[in-house]
């Protein structure tokens, strides 16, 4: 029986380029991958997930050395610029290789640094400093096989007016890639970052890890844009920590992927820190979209507000499970968690599981979830005004997403989602 560990092995990790510390780190993780098990749906964090159906042995590691497909990235960048407007910097990985890093002079002058970690002496804690020990084999695989980890540094007091975009493109068939990004926002600094994942129509296995460090009184807007192809499997993890009076807004826009999972761990570790999370997702055909969130309050007077809004159509499935964890030291916590799902077809399936774990009495926590079809009253009202049924449905779905779409971080980029959603709702509507 072929086993993915035969290919995603210590030998493969050893063949990847990079400074000594990085190679060492990869080798240790690759050893661990060799004995790790795939998670099972019996584990709470993987409940309802079709993880057992994945056949990882079907994927190929990215070949080491350069890539000649990168030329194709040029067109993509042109179209992204049209869609997203002005950027402070653009970083592109193509089939697992870092192929382009551009920074505007203004952003460079403001202090933005984009550092490919492979070439650097070890920057303290840039990898694993926020995430800690990987919680599953996919995190370990990213540690072991991340071929081009990138660090974005926004130094103390720096203010970037335009977003930084990191775009990860997978083009070769059956490729497995392990994008790795660390973002460090210094004291009082402000930045917007987009981390985008795109792939073509063929199979792909995309396993990103992102770590976000928001310093005291710093502000970060961070948007993950998942536009993988319909055959791609994406298993993504974002871990963040926010220091005192810092503010982090994490957004997820997930419209692609065959099976696409996102896990977000946001830890409010300093007094008065704020962590908002929002997600907008739309699954159709046989897509499975899977979200796990952790709102960790480990300091007093911290505030988190989560709004995840999704639609499922055809035979698509969505899973949301979220945990608000309030530690004993986190008095004065205010935590909200809302999940709303619109079922657009009979054959869909949606799970919404909120959880609370509270160890302090002086807190305000609330969670709410709703799963259901389009409200017949809404449909009737619009139709009785002479709006055709298909248009009425489109207006209602767009209206359903309106609030979260307005709340997603990096609005200049999130605006592009309207068109993607419209296309998903269907040409007839």
């Amino acid at each position, binding site marked *: 029986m072929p086993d993915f560990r035969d290919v995603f092995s210590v030998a493969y990790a050893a063949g990847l380029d990079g400074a000594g510390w990085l190679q060492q780190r990869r080798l240790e993780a690759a050893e661990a991958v060799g004995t790790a098990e795939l998670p099972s749906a019996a584990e709470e964090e993987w409940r309802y997930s079709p993880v057992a159906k994945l056949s990882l042995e079907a994927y190929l590691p990215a070949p080491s050395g350069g890539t000649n497909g990168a030329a194709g990235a040029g067109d993509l960048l042109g179209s992204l610029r049209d869609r997203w407007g002005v950027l402070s910097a653009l970083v592109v990985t193509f089939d697992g290789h870092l192929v382009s890093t551009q920074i505007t002079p203004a952003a460079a002058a403001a202090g933005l640094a984009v550092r490919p970690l492979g070439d650097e002496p070890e920057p303290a804690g840039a990898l694993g400093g926020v995430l800690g020990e990987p919680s599953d084999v996919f995190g370990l695989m990213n540690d072991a096989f991340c071929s081009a980890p990138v660090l974005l540094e926004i130094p103390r007091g720096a203010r970037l007016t335009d977003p930084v975009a990191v775009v990860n493109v997978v083009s070769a068939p059956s490729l497995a890639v392990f994008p790795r990004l660390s973002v460090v926002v210094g004291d009082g600094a402000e930045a917007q970052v987009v981390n985008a994942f795109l792939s073509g129509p063929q199979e792909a296995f995309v396993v990103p890890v992102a770590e976000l460090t928001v310093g005291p009184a710093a502000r970060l807007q961070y948007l993950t844009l998942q536009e993988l192809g319909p055959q791609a499997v994406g298993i993504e993890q974002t871990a963040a920590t926010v220091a005192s009076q810092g503010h982090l807004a994490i957004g997820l826009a997930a419209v692609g992927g065959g099976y696409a999972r996102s896990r977000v761990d946001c830890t409010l570790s300093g007094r008065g820190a704020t962590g908002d999370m929002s997600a907008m997702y739309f699954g159709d055909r046989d897509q499975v979209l899977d979200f796990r969130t952790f709102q960790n309050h480990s300091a007093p007077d911290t505030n988190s507000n989560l709004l995840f809004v999704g639609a499922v159509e055809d035979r698509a499935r969505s899973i949301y499970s979220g945990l608000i964890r309030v530690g004993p030291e986190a008095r004065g916590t205010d935590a909200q968690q809302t999940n709303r799902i619109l079922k657009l077809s009979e054959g869909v399936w949606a799970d919404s599981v909120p959880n609370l774990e509270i160890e302090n009495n002086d807190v305000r926590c609330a969670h709410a979830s709703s799963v259901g079809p389009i409200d017949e009253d809404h449909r*009737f*009202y*619009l139709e*009785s*005004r*002479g709006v055709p049924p298909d248009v009425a449905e489109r*207006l209602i779905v*767009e*209206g359903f997403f*309106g609030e979260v779409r307005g709340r997603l971080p990096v609005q200049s980029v999130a605006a592009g989602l309207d068109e993607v959603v419209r296309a998903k709702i269907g040409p007839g509507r």
Partner: protein
Amino acid sequence: MSQLSVEGLAANAAGEAILHGVDLQVSAGEVHAVMGPNGCGKSTLAHVLAGRHGYTVTAGRALLDGRDLLTLSPFERARAGLFLAMQYPTEVPGVKLLDVLGASLRAAGRSPVAADLEALLSTEAERLSVPAALLERAVNVDLSGGEQKRGEALQLAVLRPRIAVLDEIDSGLDVDALRAVARRIEEAPTEGLGVLAITHYTRLLGVLRADRVHIMIRGRIVASGGPELADELERTGYERWDRPAPAEVAVKLGRSF
């Protein structure tokens, strides 16, 4: 000339018979008022005509210019020229009134250009003293009762139906708004609009001249007359009309007449 013709209409809601054979004829250019005690079935009649879910028609017909409305979807009924101003307009989160009207006009082949649409809407909004900001807000969401009714009136004016069922459009409207709505209805071209106005108040009939007044009791029209009927009602209340129908008495007595 358009005509709404309701014949022997009977309907259930949640398995219970609410309408017991309603007959009404409304022609273009006419205003008919329907008055009746709470729960007698006025809104049920309005909803059944517009095709709202949750009702079952058990007998009768409702023809608009000869077409049986009851076989049509709510959209097709609107398309055929029927408009319903709801007693409790539905809140539709995130959907702008502007987009609703735009979509409706486009579907009707009217005013496809954005600039024309805007001009039309702002003209009508002004005539009805509706703040233009209402157009940019989600339909009925967080609007005051009166604002919702003004919104319904604005839609009536913009969509130009042949027959409009106005379910208590007057409740919640201030006196100026009520006048503006009545004026707007009267300004509809003479060959134009037929109105079925459900109301509790002669106040509406003070500003909107009704050709006919109908009294509905327990799912039936029990009396019809000129505007003087409303005045009489104002003096006497519903009691003198509120007698069980002979058939019901017969059932109670256990024999037929």
